């Protein structure tokens, strides 16, 4: 179903829904993990004053940032400086468009067929990988236009890093695409639901089992794409003050902030589509419930399942973030080009070979 055939009311609903899908889980993970889990890891309580157990803290932070003065450095390139946060954030929203949340629940699946026909001609995976790299441009713009040495170094570091880690990210997906035999995200979800491991199909074939190497590489690359520790050199608060975000304040800083954490969620959504079976639950549970996988119920259950899987994966992301020290820039590049890319190439070769063999 293509989005172009929609009436204005549905356009509006979908726009609001995309905002909700990006912002609400971002708020949830920021509160759950960035505020609370990390505080417990670090033997402190975290925010406790705003609302019960500090649950309104995020609103307070947003309110604070909205009130702040939007400072523009004197020598900054005004237009580009102002534009950069929007470019970064746009990549997040464009990514959220293609994530499937149920047999019919999605915003623009880029599929020409529909789930009930089992017709999965589409390029969702290709599109997702393509738009995920738009944020690099925004970060480079921010780094260059700030007219600050720290920002420039952060921006250049970010560009080098994000380009280096695009490759393992895409190569990890290639294994999944080969195994599923489809570029459509719905097709990948369905392949995992229908698949079986050596004739045992009760849990389907979530690719985290058969593509375990790909999953690990994907998660490492996601960590680097999100510039989270141990790959946070572009921000590196002890070296570069705050990297490309140094000169931003107020609302524009908030947009970078939202971009950072919302993108983490969207990548976790994508990882659960690629590796954890997406919005489906294992076939034996579907049989127990006595419904079919393309029934309308899954448009309700699907989003909840996706949210659960996303929370699991973002937990790992933040856990790693607050445990490890960071690499140096050259060590990071070495790690990408000498370790991750060769391993993912071997993974693709083996996957292709086994796909033909079985």
């Amino acid at each position, binding site marked *: 179903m293509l989005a172009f055939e929609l009436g204005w009311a549905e356009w509006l609903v979908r726009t609001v829904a995309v905002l909700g899908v990006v912002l609400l889980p971002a708020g949830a993970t920021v509160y759950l993990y960035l505020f609370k889990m990390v505080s417990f890891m670090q033997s402190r309580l975290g925010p406790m004053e705003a609302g019960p157990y500090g649950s309104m803290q995020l609103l307070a932070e947003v309110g604070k940032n909205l009130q702040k003065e939007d400072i523009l450095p004197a020598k900054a390139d005004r237009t580009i400086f102002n534009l950069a946060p929007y470019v970064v954030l746009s990549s997040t929203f464009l990514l959220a468009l293609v994530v499937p949340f149920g047999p019919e629940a999605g915003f623009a699946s880029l599929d020409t067929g529909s789930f009930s026909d089992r017709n999965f001609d589409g390029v969702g995976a290709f599109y997702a990988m393509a738009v995920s790299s738009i944020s690099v441009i925004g970060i480079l713009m921010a780094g260059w236009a700030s007219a600050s*040495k720290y920002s420039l170094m952060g921006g250049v570091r970010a560009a080098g890093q994000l380009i280096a880690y695009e490759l393992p990210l895409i190569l990890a997906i290639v294994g999944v695409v080969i195994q599923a035999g489809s570029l459509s995200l719905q097709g990948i979800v369905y392949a995992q639901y229908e698949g079986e491991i050596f004739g045992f199909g009760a849990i389907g074939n979530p690719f985290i089992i058969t593509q375990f190497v790909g999953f690990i590489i994907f998660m490492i690359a996601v960590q680097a794409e999100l510039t989270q520790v*141990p790959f946070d050199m572009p921000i590196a608060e002890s*070296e570069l*003050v705050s990297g490309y975000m140094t000169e931003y304040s107020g609302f524009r800083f908030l947009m970078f902030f939202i971009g950072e954490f919302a993108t983490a969620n969207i990548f976790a959504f994508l990882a659960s589509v690629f590796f954890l079976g997406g919005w489906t639950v294992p076939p034996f549970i579907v049989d127990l419930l006595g419904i079919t996988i393309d029934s309308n119920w899954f448009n309700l259950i699907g989003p909840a399942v996706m949210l659960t899987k996303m929370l699991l994966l973002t937990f790992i992301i933040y856990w790693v973030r607050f445990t490890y*020290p960071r690499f*140096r820039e050259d060590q990071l590049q070495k790690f990408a080009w000498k370790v991750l890319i060769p391993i993912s190439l071997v993974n693709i070769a083996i996957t292709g070979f086994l796909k033909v063999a079985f």
Partner: protein
Amino acid sequence: MTAVSDRRQLAYVASQAAEARVNLELETEGMTLNIGPQHPATHGTLRIVARLDGEQVIEAEPIMGYMHRGYEKLTEVRTYPQVTTLVNRIDWLGSFANEVPFILACEQLMGIEAPPRAQYIRTILFEMARMAHVTLFLGDLGVQLGAVTPVFYAFRDREHVLNQIESATGGRFHPNFDRIGGVKDDLPAGWISETKLTVKKIRQFCDTVEDLLFGNEIFETRTRGIGVIPADVGLSYGLSGANIRGSGVDWDLRRDAPNGLVYDQADWKVWTHPDGDSFARSWVRLQEVRESCNIVEQLLDNIPKGPIMAKVPRIIKVPEGEAYVATENPLGEMGYYVVSQGELTPFRVKIRSASFSNMSISPWLLKGAYVPDVITILASLYFILGDIDR
């Protein structure tokens, strides 16, 4: 008819010329980066003017003095007992350790020796100051490398030590507890058993940090082989403390010149590391906290009973003369050169603070380092701005 060697020579010349052309084309203008005086990594107001080629430092010059408070001059208008209040604030993390060498120098000039119990209390508090100080270093090292969690553990466990220092002296940060001829008060009731519990907690913290940081591959790749100080270079720059012991020089004033502190009453070990890199310096500090725990535990077991104050005149006038006494402070050798003309106030006090000498190696050490390594090298050299600028 050209000989083979000639042809090789020609080829060599041609390649050199080509390379020179390429270098000329690719030559980029260096960037001068001001790290500081306000920068998250300098924990204070240190400024480093670094000339960069890309991310590599060509030249680095530390600019000190933003926090100069003139303590050497101020001592000249303070009576001897008042000076401890000032010197407390030189190295503000290990305050008690700053008082001891000054008091020892005065005692040496006056020919007084503190009673044994006072000497024990001094040594115990001195080592507890080191525990609090280096605990924070171990946490801060993680922050400089991007691991934010250890520092919270460091602050948590340092608080136990500070509580004990506070219950004995009345001051968390600035005890002002050491007196010429002894210490101000005796230990409060129950202090010894509580301190033993604190020592246990610090030991646990050391194990945690060893697990979290020193056993981490990323930490090792970031610190091993980075900022190597050979022993002879370190000695020529006047490095002291864990920085020089990290280069394999077995030199510790606590063992070599105890100067009226009772380190010889405990069984402990001076740790050295042969590598001289950032990892070695940090590792030596980690082991030193453990040794401090050993020393404190043993001294608490054997602390003698008796007076805590020797007989000193009510109005302290230090007889004419000069003395230099140095102790092994948490940051390294800290010494006071006290010149007295027999008056109520010192005639001149020269403070030899460890961080100033430790920092002076930084232009040599930072040359050729990458910007991220500048931060780890500075973190592992471990300086306190108050200790540099006095």
